């Protein structure tokens, strides 16, 4: 997030796109709810009518995968109606002219046909967003999990630059990070192409710096992404894999392919707190300590580095992840020894400019520090890009709307989108062992619009088979208007109904993020429907699932 969470309260316009905020970021969702009560305008763009859409002032239900078109059209209106922050564009951005060329191809009338959003609504949103000074954009996986994920993000970035809604409190672009420490993991360089603090591997200066401190030669090329690794394993070119706290055998798309790839590995190490689908394939399972059993820091979505402390001793043979890694490294011949996590933090501070001052002793009191925090005196940064962007001028990257990789067709007429539920977390390695949480959502379901259900003569809670070009699952239906016509929704938490058997492994060419949000499927009812002579009374099926 470029801004801080508490700034939501003082914003004027909140534009939430592709985020089920109330269910997946409830604390942020509640701030938005409070803000709405205080008179803030809330705009939600999501194909599904999520909880946050229920109290939004405007809900744009665009088709899944048409985010670029929608955002380009909003920008088109902003330019045509003269709502551009000309001063900001002149001073702080570049490449505006060629970007403007592209924008002309997205008038609202045309985009209405692509997205299914009325041209009038697009105009209204553009005006509301651009005319207010304190406007913030929030997005989550609904934007990124597409083959055009990077373009979607770029479109959001272009929108904030066009209107100058960046670099000030209460105006910015705010990706909501899903897990407690996914921001921290990225910051620490748990990515194939960067060291900690996003210092690129291919940059010789950064590499030399790390080489000097670590005393080892470092590779000159970026590594493989998760999706690439699985493909290489499938081809037999990648021999060994070390998985930490992930469950790719349930969470990666096109599971049949992933299973085959995992089977072809010579050596698989899995480090996790519980047995899961992936440990079944492992040669070695290393038991890791859970969150309450270790010290360290988490970095949350607003870049706030927070200290965590051990509350209970690890169970059995489990050890903290850093201890396992250090021990492994030492036995492999590279001595890594730290007395505690604070010593690791000192090394992080030494090598990472943005974490330069986030040492443990400073995190003891209060609620941590927001990076960039470059020195021991630095108070942290509540919002980013105040005077300049990290790279200097912000570039308007020209983008083009591309349809999803696998749009519905005659053979597979429905669009399947996947997502999460409030009570469950990811592949359920933890929460499905928790009696009360598991009881809340004991069974998987597929959300189908009442109109589609009627045309297929499917009843609520009846068993259907959903198949795509890659596989099929059996699941019970839940008829609801939350999901638009032509679209179905399945949560991916359930191993019994592993929806990723169906999903499309097509990835974004840059970020290599798979398109979990769109794939084409067909539905086959499995329970035989009784044919009734008498016409059944019309029942209002509105929201049978009330959460």
């Amino acid at each position: 997030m470029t801004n801080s969470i508490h700034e939501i309260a003082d914003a004027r316009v909140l534009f939430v796109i592709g985020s089920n905020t109330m269910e997946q970021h409830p604390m942020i969702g509640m701030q938005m709810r409070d803000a709405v009560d205080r008179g803030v305008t809330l705009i939600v763009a999501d194909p599904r009518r999520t909880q946050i859409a229920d109290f939004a002032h405007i809900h744009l239900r665009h088709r899944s995968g048409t985010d670029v078109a929608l955002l380009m059209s909003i920008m088109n209106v902003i330019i045509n109606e003269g709502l551009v922050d000309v001063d900001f564009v002149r001073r702080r951005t570049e490449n505006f002219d060629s970007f403007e060329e592209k924008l002309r191809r997205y008038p609202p009338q045309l985009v209405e046909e692509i997205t299914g959003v009325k041209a009038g609504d697009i105009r209204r949103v553009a005006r509301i967003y651009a005319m207010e000074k304190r406007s913030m954009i929030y997005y989550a996986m609904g934007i990124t999990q597409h083959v055009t994920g990077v373009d979607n993000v770029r479109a959001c970035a272009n929108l904030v630059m066009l209107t100058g809604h960046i670099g000030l409190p209460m105006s910015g672009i705010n990706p909501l990070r899903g897990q407690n420490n996914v921001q921290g993991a990225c910051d620490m360089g748990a990515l194939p192409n960067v060291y900690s603090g996003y210092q690129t591997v291919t940059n010789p200066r950064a590499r030399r710096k790390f080489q000097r401190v670590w005393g080892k030669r470092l590779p000159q090329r970026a590594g493989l992404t998760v999706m690439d690794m699985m493909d290489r394993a499938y081809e037999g070119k990648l021999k060994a894999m070390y998985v930490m706290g992930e469950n790719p055998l349930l969470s990666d798309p096109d599971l049949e392919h992933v299973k085959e790839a995992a089977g072809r590995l010579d050596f698989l190490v899995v480090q996790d707190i519980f047995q899961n689908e992936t440990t079944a394939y492992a040669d070695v399972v290393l038991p890791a300590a859970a969150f309450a059993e270790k010290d360290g820091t988490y970095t949350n979505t607003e870049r706030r580095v927070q200290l965590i402390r051990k509350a209970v001793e690890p169970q059995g043979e489990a050890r903290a992840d850093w201890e396992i890694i250090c021990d492994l490294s030492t036995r492999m011949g590279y001595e890594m020894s730290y007395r505690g996590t604070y010593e690791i933090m000192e090394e992080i501070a030494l090598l990472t400019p943005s974490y330069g001052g986030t040492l443990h002793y400073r995190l003891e009191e209060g609620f941590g520090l927001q990076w960039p925090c470059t020195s021991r005196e630095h108070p942290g940064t509540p919002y980013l890009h105040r005077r300049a962007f990290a790279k200097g001028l912000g570039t308007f990257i020209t983008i083009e709307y591309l349809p999803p990789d696998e749009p519905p067709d005659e053979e597979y007429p429905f669009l399947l989108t996947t997502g999460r539920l409030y009570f469950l977390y990811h592949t359920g390695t933890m929460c499905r062992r928790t009696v009360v949480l598991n009881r809340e959502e004991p069974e998987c379901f597929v959300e189908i619009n009442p109109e589609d259900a009627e045309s297929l003569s499917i009843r609520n809670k009846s068993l259907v088979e959903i198949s795509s070009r890659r596989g099929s699952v059996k699941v019970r239906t839940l008829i609801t208007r939350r999901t638009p016509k032509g679209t179905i929704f399945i949560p991916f938490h359930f191993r019994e109904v592993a929806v990723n058997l169906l999903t499309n492994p097509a990835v974004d060419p840059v970020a290599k993020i798979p398109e979990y949000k769109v794939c084409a499927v067909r539905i086959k009812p499995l329970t035989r429907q009784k044919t009734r002579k008498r016409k059944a009374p019309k029942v209002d099926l509105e929201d049978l699932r009330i959460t």
Partner: protein
Amino acid sequence: MKNSWILDKNHLSYWLRQLRKDRELIGPLRRYNHDIVFRTVEEIHEIALDCPASLPSPKEFLFPQYERMLRAGDLSSGRRVQDLRTERPRVIFGVRACDVSAVMLLDRFFLDNSKDPYYDSRRRNTLFVSVVCNNPDPTCFCAGLQTGPYLERGFDIQLTDLGDRYFVQADSREGIRTISATGFLFNRPKKSDYDDQYEVFLSAKAHFQKIISLDGPRQAILLGRVHDEFWQGVTDRCFECGGCVYECPLCTCFTVTDRSYEDGTERIRLWDTCLFKGFTRMAGGVLPNENRILRTKRWYYHKLIHYPDLLGSFGCVGCGRCTITCPGKIDMATIATKIKGLSLNGDLG
């Protein structure tokens, strides 16, 4: 008043050490970031008496979040089914009056009709030493509910801080026995001590930032003046996180489940929440209260309507823990105030 004594403050730690000889001493301790928890006291000077309310409430010592009930299939012990009830004697020092009031109500819930053996064995072995609140938190509202800041009766031992000494009262038989076991520490109070104690009681009540009565909201609900539109607004702000229930010293929802290990199976009891839809789901998946409003409403109805009907007092002691915990700001104090405001304004939506 009989059963009153004076304890010199200098002798408090000596007394606690005496108490600790045959009991586990539990008291409020400060943790990181100003957290207050009740835990076994290792060093007596660490006890934090002038502190805000602990989270969670001391109910966890009578009705723990995770309670092992019995164990089956462990053949090495010679018994096929093994009762896991604990009989460990404990003294919980420094609890607030509101929490003791809550325990008195919990007793009626767990012990009145059919005795809960697990609660019973813990309760019989637990002695509460409460302290009169002299500086309530901003969230506290026990004064309006007569559940605090001091108690008239029902407590084991109650201390009132009189500056350099404590005014000690004992009400239960166990409390009196405990005091007389170390009778050499306690003196008979003088007339001036009674006066001082009365002063403290008065000033304690004066320190409250809010006085909330639940009678008005109860009447408004009973008269049908609080409509579903109001509850819809409340429901919209409810996360179903269950925080209010877990922290509430009076909430008693639990679930029972079995957990299998290599050498046997354990039956455990866990805290649960009536706010969860699974709590009342029946076989076949039917939900009697599928509509979320019903679930949210039930929590307030239980505390405001059913508790007084069944036990004669509200299911809320005004400890303010839900005010601290609730992220949606729909805690009891807020909702009671809102309902009161609605019925006063005549706008009963």
